């Protein structure tokens, strides 16, 4: 619930610093309607309490054939119609308020999520969790205003019933109070061992789901082996056990229902019995007896109050999950322009980034001259991806400054920054209805021609044309492999290329041939500018003008690939992590731990001994 100063700065006047304030904000958003809903609910409650008494009185008048009977019936009619109207309005208003509240919370939520640095959102929750917070949790939280408005009535009706029962005859009241705990105890005896069967049921269910997912992952193997019938048998093997557990659940539930089903009727019958005795003595009229039995039922509704409170508690808990999301501080955006026609010179000054208390970049100073290609290499965990994120302000730095053409990134207006800095990722998330739309996605729309040129450069044009409908193929049903996805991500970045392009391991799933082609096209066909590429293969590093070698969050060395290759530690970067660099002289080591293409690429650079010729 701690509101940070950044959140407080935000233009939106949303209460982001607590569940209570968030829900109050939600009520305020629909203040008039919520008040009306409360009015309806209170009116409905008042009618519900008054009606049995009026009904009983009318019955007495009718039985006596007394003078006021007509007027009494008319009053009953008014009350009954009023109750129906109140109930209908309550249902209508309730639905509308809940819908409005949910929409308000969701807009607030998604706007906030979009203002976060991605890593902050990821630290707080997984994507699936985030969706749950904005769908299911918001749906539950947004019932709070209506539950609160109705809750008052839910409390008043049973209390009113109890009081009315006492007013009619204190003995009836006493019978009711005495019977309540007795019968509640009886009910408890019925309800035992419920949760156990549910847990077992869910375990069997998860088992079946696990078997199915496993088999789906092996679809190609199963298709080739023609073993689908056998597989289905294996997946469904636990189904009988699921049925057994399911039957146990119904059995337990049935016993609970049976208990609940007799509780109120027995209580009412007890009240009627005592009332009947009083009637014989002339202390009670038939109408009063009718009213008393009805009030006993209303009073028994006291149990529903618990349910209502439960619902409020659940709403609040759900609201807290939304509020937590809103409490994550968002990124502040600048307003400065960039110098026109800047070369794309990137400069890091004393940059430190800390994640989970551990520095992942430590005091990094780096200058990437405009128009050059710089590769960033290092063992996994060296801070390569963080450096890539920092270069285009996908994350803010904890200390130091990052400048593009002399302007600190944090001060550049976001729309300018995003036009000039492009990214391609190892696993791009694609947006858009079609393949073409996915490539066009960005700060501005591209023409079909630009899209095709970019796709061609990214080596994607070929497979796109093989898809049914080609560029117009719907994105969600196009069967894309990891490598194809990467190439679409590359095409998207190429289509919007500005003065700085960051490729964060964006060619890792491409085979050697395609990677080579894309590497060449990047230099030849994509708008000239500065390129920063995070590389795992020696071949990529060899093509760059300069290589930044990161180790433990620091720049260990800076230079050309040829020069750095002399250093065994540098060569070890391209081998399996954790290998002993001294083993490099052993040809077996080379063959085992370096991709042949990479090793040979190194040899092309003139430093590696011959080693991979043994395959013949």
């Amino acid at each position, binding site marked *: 619930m701690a509101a940070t100063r950044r959140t407080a700065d935000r233009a939106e006047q949303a209460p982001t610093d607590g569940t209570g304030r968030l829900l109050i904000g939600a009520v305020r958003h629909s203040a008039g309607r919520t008040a009306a809903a409360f009015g309806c609910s209170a009116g409905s409650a008042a009618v519900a309490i008054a009606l049995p008494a009026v009904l009983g009185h009318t019955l007495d008048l*009718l039985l006596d054939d007394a003078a006021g009977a007509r007027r009494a019936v008319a009053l009953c009619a008014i009350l009954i119609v009023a109750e129906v109207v109140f109930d209908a309005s309550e249902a209508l208003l309730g639905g509308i308020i809940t819908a409005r509240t949910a929409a308000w919370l969701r807009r607030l939520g998604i706007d906030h999520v979009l203002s976060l640095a991605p890593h902050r959102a990821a630290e707080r929750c997984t994507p699936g969790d985030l969706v749950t917070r904005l769908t299911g949790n918001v749906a539950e939280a947004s019932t709070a205003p209506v539950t609160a408005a109705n809750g008052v009535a839910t409390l008043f009706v049973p209390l009113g019933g109890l009081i009315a029962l006492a007013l009619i005859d204190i003995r009836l009241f006493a019978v009711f109070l005495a019977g309540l705990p007795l019968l509640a105890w009886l009910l408890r005896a019925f309800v035992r061992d419920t949760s156990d069967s549910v847990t077992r049921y869910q375990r069997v269910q998860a088992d079946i789901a696990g078997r199915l997912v496993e088999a789906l992952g092996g679809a190609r193997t199963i298709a*080739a*082996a023609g073993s689908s019938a056998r597989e289905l048998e294996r997946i469904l093997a636990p189904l009988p056990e699921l049925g057994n557990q399911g039957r146990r659940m119904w059995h337990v539930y049935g016993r609970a*229902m049976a208990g609940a*089903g*007799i509780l109120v009727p027995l209580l009412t019958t007890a009240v009627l019995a005592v009332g009947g005795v009083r009637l014989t003595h002339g202390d009670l009229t038939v109408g009063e007896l009718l009213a008393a039995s009805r009030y006993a039922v209303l009073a028994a509704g006291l149990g529903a109050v618990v349910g209502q409170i439960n619902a409020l508690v659940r709403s609040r808990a759900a609201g807290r999950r939304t509020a937590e999301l809103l409490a994550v501080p968002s990124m502040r955006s600048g307003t400065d322009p960039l110098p026109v026609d800047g070369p794309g010179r990137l400069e890091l000054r004393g940059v430190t980034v800390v994640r989970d208390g551990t520095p992942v970049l430590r005091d990094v100073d780096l200058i990437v001259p405009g128009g050059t290609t710089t590769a960033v290499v290092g063992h996994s965990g060296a801070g390569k991806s963080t450096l890539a994120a920092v270069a285009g302000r996908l994350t803010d730095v904890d200390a130091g400054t990052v400048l593009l053409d002399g302007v600190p990134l944090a001060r550049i207006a976001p729309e300018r920054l995003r036009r000039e800095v492009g990214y391609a990722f190892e696993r791009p*998330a694609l947006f858009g209805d079609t393949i073409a739309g996915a490539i066009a996605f960005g*700060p501005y729309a591209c023409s079909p021609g630009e899209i095709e040129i970019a796709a061609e450069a990214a080596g994607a044009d070929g497979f796109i044309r093989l*898809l049914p409908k080609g560029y117009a193929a719907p994105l969600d049903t196009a069967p894309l492999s990891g490598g194809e996805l990467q190439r679409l991500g590359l095409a998207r970045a190429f289509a919007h290329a500005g003065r700085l392009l960051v490729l964060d391991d964006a060619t890792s799933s491409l085979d050697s041939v*395609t990677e080579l082609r894309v590497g060449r096209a990047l230099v030849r066909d994509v708008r000239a500018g500065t390129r920063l590429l995070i590389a795992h293969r020696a071949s990529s590093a060899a093509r760059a003008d300069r290589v930044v070698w990161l180790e433990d969050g620091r720049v260990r060395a800076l230079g050309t690939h040829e020069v750095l290759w002399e250093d065994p530690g540098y060569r070890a970067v391209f081998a399996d992590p954790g290998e002993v660099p001294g083993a490099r002289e052993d040809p077996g080591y080379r063959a085992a731990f370096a991709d042949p293409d990479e090793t040979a690429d190194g040899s092309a650079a003139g430093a590696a001994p011959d080693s991979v010729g043994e395959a013949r």
Partner: protein
Amino acid sequence: MKAGRSRVPVLARRFLARRRWVLVRLAGWSLLESTQTFLGGYGVAMALDRGFLAGHTGIGLVWLAVAAVAIVLGGSATGGTFRGLADLVEPLRDGLVRRVAAGALVEAIDAPARAADGAVVSRLTNQSEIARDSFAGLVLVTRSFVFTALGALFGLAALAPELLVVVVPPLVLGLGLFLATLAPMAARQRAFLDADEALSARLGMVATGLRDVLAGGAHDSVAARTHALIDAEARAARSLARWAGARAIALGVAGQLPVLLLLVTAPWLLDRGLTAGALLGALTYLTQALLPALHTLMHALGAAGTRLLVVLDRLTAGPTVTPAAARRVAGSTGASGGPPRVRLHRVTFAYGPSAAPVLRDLDLSVEPGEHLVVVGPSGIGKSTLTAIVAGVLAPDRGEVYVDGRPVRPVGGDPSRLRVLIPQQAYVFTGSVRENLHYLCPDGASTSALTASADAVGLLPLIDRLGGLDAPVDPASLSQGERQLIALGRAHLSPAPLVLLDEATCHLDPVAERRAEQAFAQRPGTLIVVAHRISSARRADRVLVLDGVHAVCGTHHELLERSSLYRDLVGDWHAERI
């Protein structure tokens, strides 16, 4: 789902018809429960008329005691009701789970690239559970309303038949109104669920792509589209709320109007000899039995009913599929002895009618016992080629022969003829032995098993797992370890033709070489799709696919004839060729 009418009504009728006796049993128990309703009003009327109003307190109490006994009896009948309910609901869930699993499996086999997503798990667990719960709720509530109404109407008739004249018309009118709201409400509910699902999908996309949205500077357009979906969902919810209001009015007509009419007509009824007790009994039926039953009926039918329909529609969309069991044509399909020749004649294949062909007029002949390696850029059709040779895909044009016979239709157990190991190695939860036997229709001895495992370099992993009969948890294995198991499985199989489709891509080069050599030494014809160019060096012949031409030859021939092959090899090994 949009195309064609829903199959639910037909399937539902068939489902219920097959369970006629369950329904009869359920009705029997429900009837026993409904005596509680009947005596609830009748007992009160009698207690009043014969007992309390006549001055016989004892008789009044006896009648109430009878009603109380009926209540307890009704409560115990509930147990039977729930047994009947379970007999109705559990088979439904079984059927749905079976259908979802079979459908997902067949779909995945048809289009492996799109397989294994969370939607299937949701259908298998969440959605089948929603169907189970909603169906149970529906049965419970409908049954409870029908038998409560029966009990109450019989009670009213027993008290005084004239009461029916007063009560039935508004009840029927209200129910009619309610039924009239059902169809539009179901449509609104469905629209709401669709809007909700679209919103969830969109939010999921945004949540996984936050980094891409930020990097792409597409904040505004993404926010705008998401807001539009949020608003659409809210509009659908409001529309639903309006019909909830209409439903409340129907409830008022069905439940409250009879009470009012009873009061209005009371003087007339009393004139015709209706007793005070009977009037009280009638009011008891209306307020204590019918009104609550109506209330739950209307709320449950509106929400649960539609939810059930939507979910069932979704789960039963598409044809009922059962994976075809391997046709038992034993003997006829085994290879004729030695390694088979593979021959492709003018094979053309495209993914979809408007897509450019991946393979065009491909001719290829692989000699018995030959080791062929296929190379080329990704997406060029190498996997397609192996799938066609295996008979998993049918070419659009051209013929494929293995051992002189057409590969399609695949008859008998295909594992006797050929095995295809794809890049995604399939390992299932079970013992190591079960996993290795997967492609052995006749089983295999432990010594053969160990020999194959040794040949492909699987023994250290088996030792680590705890032996052949140790359980395997696929999730705890690395991709490379899974590939080793799949390779061991292929090596062990009796098939004389082995197709490895980048089946070694997650192995390190040394392990890859060992595995490929094991297959080269295994008797039979071998076709390998190479992930690394180094695989080509181990082949008898190499097939180079570049999207336009297919060139086949030995390593040295190809260096002469294929510029792409020269590129592939030359780029990395120039100084050694």
